[in-house]
């Protein structure tokens, strides 16, 4: 009995591969998911920039970020909050979004917060700095 068990190694590789592949697949898809996360974060940064600029330019910045986020919205991203607040000549915009991930990962969603700061033009100090260089 023992001898027969010892000698039969035919399915060993298959089982080993199945176990290893599970781990490797999680790793690979995790890396892919990380790339997607990075891409969306870059786009969200762009959106935050747009929101800040819209706040500087025309003081109503709801749509500006939405138009930037629109292409990635099809890839499972939902912008939650885009707003900008200005104090003492500095505009700070905040973009909050949710990205839906694959189910097999620990957390099915990723919530990202991106901020962008921009100086309002009529600030005297800003003029001095930018012209001196």
């Amino acid at each position: 009995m023992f001898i027969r068990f010892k000698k039969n190694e035919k399915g060993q590789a298959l089982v080993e591969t199945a176990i290893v592949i599970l781990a490797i697949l999680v790793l690979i898809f995790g890396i892919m998911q990380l790339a997607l996360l990075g891409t969306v974060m870059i786009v969200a940064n762009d959106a935050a920039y747009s929101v800040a600029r819209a706040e500087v330019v025309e003081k109503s910045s709801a749509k500006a970020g939405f138009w930037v986020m629109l292409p990635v919205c099809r890839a499972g991203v939902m912008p939650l909050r885009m707003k900008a607040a200005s104090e003492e000549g500095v505009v700070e915009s905040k973009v909050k979004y949710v990205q839906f991930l694959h189910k097999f990962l620990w957390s099915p969603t990723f919530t990202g917060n991106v901020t962008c700061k921009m100086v309002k033009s009529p600030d005297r100090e800003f003029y001095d700095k930018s012209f001196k260089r």
Partner: protein
Amino acid sequence: MINRLKDERGQILPFVALTLLALVMFWMTVVNVGKLVRDRIMLQNAADAAAQSAACMKARALNSIGRINALLGVPVQSLGGIPLESLIELVLRHAPKTIRKIIAFFLRKLPFPEVVVWWPYVGTVLPNQYVKSLITLQEFYNYTLGGVGAYIIAYNVAKENGADYVIASPNIFSLDGALDRNRGLIVYCDTVVIWGIPIPIPTRWQRGAKRWLELKENEDEIHNALKVTVIAVKKAERGFFPLGKGLLGIEKMPTIYAIASARAYNTKGPMFPSHGRRSGISALTEYLSAMFGGYDAHLIPVGSPFEH
């Protein structure tokens, strides 16, 4: 033969290759998107800076022109000139407004000299030459600072910030869209001094002569003329990017455009008299009221649905 069939090395190789391919493609996508976004933000900053600089130039031109305009208004009305409206205001101060308006309407029908140029102490410069030189100076500022200069500044600033070239709205080249030249009668006088009192003697009556600058009637027209719109363009570059041309099926990076608008504005007033004023004193009063504000430049919305 059997040994070779039993050799299981290299089995994992295609799997690893495919996996690596997929991972590399993802990495390339991230890098390409990052490059795109970086270029867009940089170019938007370039367009902003260019528009702001051009509008700043226009603001400087407007400040200079406005000051000269006040000079044109002051001597023109100095002593001999009789602004009819203000005279009626003085004489019939307590009369009802309708009566004043009716009298002013009938007085305006008379061929009365609206503007008399007379400086008792000018000396060597003839009055008409003085007026002509001031007008020439205004045109000079209009086309250098407020026109070509604004475009050159916009181009250089955009180029320094990474744009390849600039498309600007045609009204960047002059302030003619906002300002109009008032035309009317000017009476030039010589001076005779009797017992130390300078007395004007009219020598030349010039009809339809160029006078001070005034604003146009339509406010939208003025707004559009003072608004500078700049499109900064960055052409598709050859070289490293896009990463993975064949792999991702992208031939080249797209040409990037960024648009920005800026406007010269003055919080204290327009600095120029409104359309169709007959008395030149308004050029002075408008300048005095707007003097402490001064023209400044600020980014304004282009007017696109994307809130640029």
